């Protein structure tokens, strides 16, 4: 009988040892699976300020629609607790509290939400005030596609996502693929045509250097506003007439009196009726410099298809 007991003790001990040795293994496995407090991520934001984010932020507020869209596209949408009044995508964002615009952010409402990270535009008025209250603020404002790639990487790191570089790259590549696909769908007749994109009333054009211009270039269109003129220059209407664009993209509201503009009846786009007037909802998507650029491209392609039916 004692022999059996001794054997049983040995066995029990062995079992204990076995399970005990498994413990560190399970812990290591857990580490590998959950995004825990890894090394703090430091980045230099668009103000030139170095910001250190110690651990994964769980309550994020974005005050620029493109930044919110990037956060959601990086699969961290559930961490958003507040947005600005212009953010409206994806669906979840519409249920979040809206905290005003760039110049009139609702400070108190924002602070009440107790964010641990606020992403906002460089020119936001409330940045200094938030920092003086000890809130972590990162200012990012993507102006073109190269910017966007950088911003996506920075946000992925700031969110302490697992393998942030890969996640960012995946998102970026998917954007590029969709853009390429849209470019393929452009009617052959439209390729190489001169285009004038009016971004705002008062002859504010989207030039080749802007992100809208980059999309247009991707679709194979030639912008009458060259990069040397800047991203969103106010052009002399006479220069548009001289450049004689074959296609015009603009918002619906300003498109009504296009023919009344002095001298513009001679423009090929107007005489040939090749004008795309985007509805306010469509314009909203097109002016976003976020991950929905492919959607903007799709809207443009759809319009081009209507212009040049095969």
């Amino acid at each position, binding site marked *: 009988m004692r022999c059996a007991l001794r054997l049983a003790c040995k066995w029990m001990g062995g079992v204990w040892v076995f399970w005990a040795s498994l413990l560190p293994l399970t812990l290591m496995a857990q580490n590998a699976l959950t995004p825990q407090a890894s090394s703090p991520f430091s980045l230099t934001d668009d103000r030139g300020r170095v910001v250190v984010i110690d651990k994964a932020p769980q309550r994020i507020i974005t005050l620029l629609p493109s930044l919110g869209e990037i956060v959601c596209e990086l699969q961290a949408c559930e961490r958003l607790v507040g947005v600005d009044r212009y953010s409206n995508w994806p669906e979840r964002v519409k249920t979040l509290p809206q905290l005003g615009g760039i110049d009139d952010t609702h400070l*108190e409402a924002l602070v009440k939400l107790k964010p641990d990270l606020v992403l906002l535009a460089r020119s936001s008025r409330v940045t200094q005030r938030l920092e003086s209250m000890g809130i972590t603020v990162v200012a990012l404002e993507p102006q073109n596609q190269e910017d966007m790639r950088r911003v996506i990487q920075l946000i992925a790191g700031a969110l302490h996502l697992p393998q942030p570089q890969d996640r960012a790259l995946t998102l970026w590549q998917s954007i590029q693929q969709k853009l390429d696909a849209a470019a393929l769908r452009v009617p052959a007749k439209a390729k190489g045509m001169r285009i004038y994109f009016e971004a705002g009333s008062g002859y504010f054009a989207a030039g080749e250097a802007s992100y809208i211009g980059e999309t247009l270039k991707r679709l194979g269109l030639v912008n009458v506003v060259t990069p040397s003129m800047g991203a969103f220059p106010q052009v002399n209407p006479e220069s548009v007439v001289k450049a004689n664009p074959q296609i015009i993209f603009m918002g619906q509201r300003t498109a009504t009196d296009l023919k009344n503009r002095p001298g513009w009846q001679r423009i090929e786009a107007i005489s040939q009726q090749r004008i795309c007037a985007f509805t306010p909802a469509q314009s909203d998507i097109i002016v976003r410099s976020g991950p929905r650029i492919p959607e903007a491209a799709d809207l443009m392609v759809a319009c081009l298809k209507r212009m040049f039916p095969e």
Partner: protein
Amino acid sequence: MNARKNQSAGGLALQLFLLLLLLVGLGALVGSEGFAGLQIQADFSLITDIRLPRTLGACLAGALLGLAGALAQGLFRNPLADPYLLGSASGASLGVAIGMVLLSQLNMSPWFMRMGITGMAFMGAWLAVALSLVLSWGVQHTLRLLLAGVVVGVVFGAMASLLLIMFPQIQGSVQSFMLGSTAYVGWSACGLMLAVLVVSWLVSVAASPLLDGLALGESTALSLGLPVKSLRWLMLAVLALCTAAAVAQTGLIAFVGLAAPHLVRGRVKAVHGKTLSLSCLMGAVLLGGADLLARGLMAPLELPVGVLTAILGGGYMLFLMRGMSTKSVGQAGGRS
């Protein structure tokens, strides 16, 4: 003999001070829920971090503007003068526009980073006034100074407009600055404004006999032994400092500087030493009250505080004017 019973300066001062205390108290309670949320919240930090500095900041900025307005009206003997008449408004706008443009360039120099937009607004306002003074150097006549101020204002305004056209993305920010807002005033801003207010108030009250003398005419002021020229420069410098400090923190808030001295003079007839201080208090009450209404009336939306100062100040001025017109002018008991 029916001399109009004017309120004593001390009486008005007490009234305004009590009103100010009330405003500060209310300011701690009115927040993003408006007047409905008028209870002490569990989150005390909201009161100390946001509401108190904001209310105090509005009162301090109002005091600065009230003082500047009283100085401007006294120095130029013009009841339509306001703190912005030497081009400081356009200067501040230009400073903000330049600041916004620099902000949009990715490589920013460290001195600009430290200064920020408020610093640029302050510099712009100060430089505009300094330029007006330089342009009218050596000329005793205040008219030349006013003209120089108009010129500087117009030129700087045009330069700011040029920047807005060249960089349309800053239009929204500059416009919101022009509208004025008390929403983002923190404790450090309060400290700055308080320091400027104390210094300016001391200097102004000390130099106030100049304004009394000037009210009787420049010749009389000189004959009374007042060092008119040097005191005038000093007061102009104080005027510029007050305006620049207020504008840097809260943007261009109209009407407070114009209305506060009028409101004081409508109630009290006293020497400038007293009316300057009363204008401070009146301006503080005006802007503090407007700030309270701005965030409370349509919470969480914010009304532009400049609109509310115009309604509050303008309304009260209309009320005073009606009172004035019902009394016949020149009702002198001693007229033979």
